[in-house]
């Protein structure tokens, strides 16, 4: 175990020296990888920030449920209000709903008279024509899709006349975010392929430069694991260097973007903030880049060693 650790640290040190000894190609590779990784990373950060906007929007959105059709001449006003309260209690049972507020017909009429110039007109009517209302407060975490589903459920409920909800621009925003997210996914996949190809290529060059060493080690009894080890470190370290450069690029870009975007959001009186990279995302970027580097080295070397072994068998 101690020998194993000693050996790994030694290979790590040697591989770092190997990278440091050719600073030009090491830096160039890190920059190319960094640019490739930073693109999906920035897209992801922007989509993530947009999601936090929708979260905020839901706080203000309520669904108004009108109960009816009222046939006031057949139902006593007291009884009708009772009916509306029952519906309100049913609505409160729905998991997506956080609260329900009951507004009686009388209250609706009062509000209407106070807010509208048509108030006097209604005074002339014998009966109050306005239906009672339920104001439904959805859970704050709901996204637009859940909201429209909730609206459909409410509209289909017995005793409900109509449902009103301002959802258009919510849905639009949601669609834009979905597009951004698929864009991020596509970019990330392309990035992953690019990173694997780039690192695979540098590993191939490394194999060519060290083919004599590989052959000697193979000859004196080095296992495939032993032969692979420095190259796996090489690929992994290159992946990490690319990840670090990508984080620097993304942080700079987001820093430059933050002011104009927040200003723009302010114009829409919205709380849209592009936050710089948090620890979780940064960690994930480094881990993923390291993993891609390792994979690239593993496959490139696997192919090389298999070829070397097969040629001994005359294949």
């Amino acid at each position, binding site marked *: 175990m*101690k*020998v*194993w650790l*000693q*050996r790994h640290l*030694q290979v790590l040190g040697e591989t770092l020296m190997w990278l440091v000894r050719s600073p030009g190609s090491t830096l160039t590779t890190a920059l190319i990888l960094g640019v490739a990784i930073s693109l999906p990373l920035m897209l992801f950060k922007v989509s993530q920030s947009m999601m936090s906007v929708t979260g905020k929007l839901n706080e203000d959105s309520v669904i108004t449920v009108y109960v009816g059709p009222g046939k006031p001449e057949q139902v006593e006003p007291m009884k009708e209000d009772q009916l509306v309260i029952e519906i309100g209690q049913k609505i409160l049972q729905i998991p997506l709903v956080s609260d329900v507020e009951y507004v009686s017909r009388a209250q609706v009429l009062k509000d209407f008279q106070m807010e509208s110039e048509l108030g006097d007109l209604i005074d002339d009517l014998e009966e109050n024509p306005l239906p009672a209302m339920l104001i439904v407060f959805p859970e704050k975490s709901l996204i637009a899709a859940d909201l429209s589903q909730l609206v459909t459920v409410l509209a289909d409920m017995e005793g409900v006349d109509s449902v009103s909800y301002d959802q258009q621009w919510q849905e639009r925003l949601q669609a834009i975010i979905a597009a951004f997210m698929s864009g991020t996914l596509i970019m990330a996949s392309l990035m992953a392929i690019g990173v694997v190809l780039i690192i695979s290529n540098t590993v191939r060059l490394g194999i060519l430069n060290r083919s*004599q*060493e590989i*052959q*000697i*080690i*193979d*000859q*004196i*009894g*080095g*296992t*495939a*694991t*032993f032969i692979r080890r420095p190259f796996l470190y090489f690929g992994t370290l290159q992946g990490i260097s690319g990840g670090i450069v990508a984080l620097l690029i993304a942080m700079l870009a987001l820093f430059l973007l933050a002011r104009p975007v927040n200003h723009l959001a302010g114009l829409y009186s919205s709380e849209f903030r592009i936050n710089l990279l948090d620890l979780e995302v940064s960690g994930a970027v480094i881990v993923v880049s390291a993993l891609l580097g390792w994979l690239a080295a593993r496959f490139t070397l696997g192919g090389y060693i298999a070829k070397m*072994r097969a040629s*001994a*068998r*005359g294949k």
Partner: protein
Amino acid sequence: MIEFKQVVKRYPGGLDALRHVSVFIPRGSITFLTGHSGAGKSTVLKLITLSEVATRGQVLVNDEDISLFRGDRIALHRRTIGSVFQDHKLLPDKTVEENVALPLVVAGMGNRDCARRARAALDKVGLLKLCRRFPQTLSAGEQQRVGIARAVVGRPDILLADEPTGNLDPELADEIMKLFFLFNQHDVTVIIATHDYRHLNNPAAGLLALENGQISGDSYS
């Protein structure tokens, strides 16, 4: 012991480097493998280290058919063999001591033991004072002795040398040969491929002669 049973080796391109070779080399022996250039000497050694695999027939080492070995079993098999090459095959960016220690590092030995045994091996070939130097600063004879130290550092059962004196002048060649006889006295099975006829009349050594991929002389049969 090493045994070849009706071994055929055909390289890609169709040429048969070995044609139905059957030999038996006893444990602890020292053997000269001789023949003109292209006779198949190197091929015999490569089949023993599994650098090449027999096209037909069997190569047995300690009664095991080594052509059945795969993956890490091949690596383990090679650790029981020390190889010396005409061109030394030393790594230019490692010191003499690091080169000699390489088989031990590969076998997973700790740094301190590696260094100690590498120095002991260098001492045996008379080069301990050069252990911090790099191979390209050494003479051809010294490089070859470093190669020998590397071959024996892992205390192999078998020591194979492919034209180890090919590039050396006669006095140096004699010195190198003496080293092989020395290691043979420590119960190591030694096979030396050479077309240097000056060494062949040593009565302590067995002789295998190859001609066009076939055995033309065998002191063991």
